[in-house]
């Protein structure tokens, strides 16, 4: 780990000012990702600004029914929060499907959004990686890519977005609140993360020194009937091979609204809007779920070791939809 100076911020303004225009400064919240990356010499901040004392730990229901989650709410507190568990089961389940109880006790909502890929080669500084060292090349495309993305990839990077929570947030049309030197703004969650394109090192639209302060989830008719299904090689404490956050609004057996987002397959949390549309006004049947799953994966591009992912992702979608839509043949 490279040396750094450590300061603890007392207010949002202090924290933002402490970073300012210093591109070698970083916020630290739960620390579960940044400390890991610092140990690997992937992140080398000269200054760490501890934001854990900031007043960003509340979960509140706004007057419009939306729920606003402070950026420093720990993953476990968020998952078990009554409002979240009742109104947004997919979010609660996605959180509990991620990491371990200990890590969830540490990790914050804001930090989860910013967590970086678990690509083997990104983590191994002895190997080329365009995300870590722009221009050095991608070791995964011609290397071992079983865990890698099949959607949203580029010829520079095929790293999978690792978060479970973000898959649910993308299905729920969340809004990210940020604060910077120039004041506050909001970013639609679907616009928050960037595709790798030619600049895989740039992962989101945050500007220098901006602090995530909250995540807002709009109230909806469908979120209550939702779930998150994660497929992996072992039963717990592992990143997804494939996962699906799904919600269905069903009236008289007909789907009026649907949400499908995928994890483990995209270079960012992957929202499958076209697949959702294909379900509208359809019956909740396995046949229709299967057709929607085909739509969701139609643009998949596979590599040597992840050719199984489109089919597994489809079956994950079908299984998840069956859980909330009934298994109707």
């Amino acid at each position, binding site marked *: 780990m490279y040396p750094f100076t450590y300061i603890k911020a007392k207010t949002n303004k202090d924290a933002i000012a402490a970073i300012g225009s210093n591109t070698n400064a970083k916020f630290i919240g739960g620390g579960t990702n940044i400390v890991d990356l610092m*140990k690997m010499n992937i992140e080398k901040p000269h200054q760490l600004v501890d934001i854990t004392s900031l007043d960003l730990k509340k979960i509140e229901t706004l007057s419009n029914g939306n729920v606003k989650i402070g950026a420093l709410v720990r993953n476990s507190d968020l998952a078990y929060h009554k409002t979240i568990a009742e109104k947004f089961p997919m979010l609660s389940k996605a959180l509990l499907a991620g990491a*371990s109880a200990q890590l969830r006790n540490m990790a914050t909502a804001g930090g989860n959004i910013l967590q970086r890929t678990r690509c083997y080669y990104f983590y191994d500084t002895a190997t080329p990686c365009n995300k870590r060292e722009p221009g050095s090349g991608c070791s995964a495309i011609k290397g071992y890519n079983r865990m890698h993305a099949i959607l949203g990839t580029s010829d520079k990077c095929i790293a999978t977005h690792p978060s479970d929570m973000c898959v649910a947030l993308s299905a729920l049309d969340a809004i990210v609140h940020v604060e910077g030197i120039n004041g506050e703004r909001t970013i639609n969650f679907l616009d928050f993360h960037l595709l790798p394109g030619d600049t895989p090192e740039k992962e989101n639209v945050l500007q220098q020194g901006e602090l995530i302060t909250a995540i807002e989830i709009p109230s909806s008719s469908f979120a209550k009937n939702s779930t998150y299904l994660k497929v992996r090689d072992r039963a717990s404490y592992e990143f997804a091979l494939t996962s699906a956050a799904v919600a269905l609004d069903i009236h008289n057996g007909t789907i009026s609204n649907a949400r499908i987002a995928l994890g483990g397959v995209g270079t960012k949390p992957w929202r499958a809007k076209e697949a959702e549309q294909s379900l509208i006004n359809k019956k909740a049947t396995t046949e229709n779920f299967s057709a929607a799953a085909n739509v969701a994966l139609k643009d998949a591009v596979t590599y040597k070791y992840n050719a199984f992912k489109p089919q597994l992702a489809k079956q994950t979608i079908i299984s998840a939809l069956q859980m909330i839509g009934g298994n109707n043949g």
Partner: protein
Amino acid sequence: MFNKEDNALLDDNKGTTRREFIVRTSAFTAAITIAKYPVKTIVDKINQPEAGNVVVTINVNGKSKTLEIDARTTLLDALRENMHLTGTKKGCDRGQCGACTVLVDERRINSCLYLAAMCDGSKVTTIEGLGTEDNLHPMQQAFLKHDAFQCGYCTSGQICSAVGLLKEGHAKTDDDIRELMSGNICRCGAYQNILDAVKEVQNA
């Protein structure tokens, strides 16, 4: 060769109680040499720390300790290397095994990914703070009874995690306990016995 005292300590401690064993072995190590380079750790007076260092006050197992340490020091390394509380284990140093689990302000966390600097003012409970050999914590007692360990290296983390789990109160079934203990890897494979131990304390 080794001095007589050293040999006596490890060889002829007839019928030692475990407590004596510890006292004697620590006396043995102390007998080797005397520290020439005192690593600056527990400080009496807080002066301006050296560049790159931080001064933190942590309540560890009920005792307040003030340390001047490298800002890079994790809570895990601060416990093991600076405070010589080696009950907390380093298994992976990356949050991937759970051997380093301790309770910070009564919540279980991975101390390997937690900077000691961030613990200023916190209350930390390690395996050493749960109970002693003569006065075992109920979870320690249950682990012993159910043979919930073999090599013992993941054990401190498992026990701290189990204590944290019960405090959290979300585990209702065997499968819940299994899922919520999954952040603690036991390579010897004592999982079934750990489950039995946790259940015994939960139902007590």
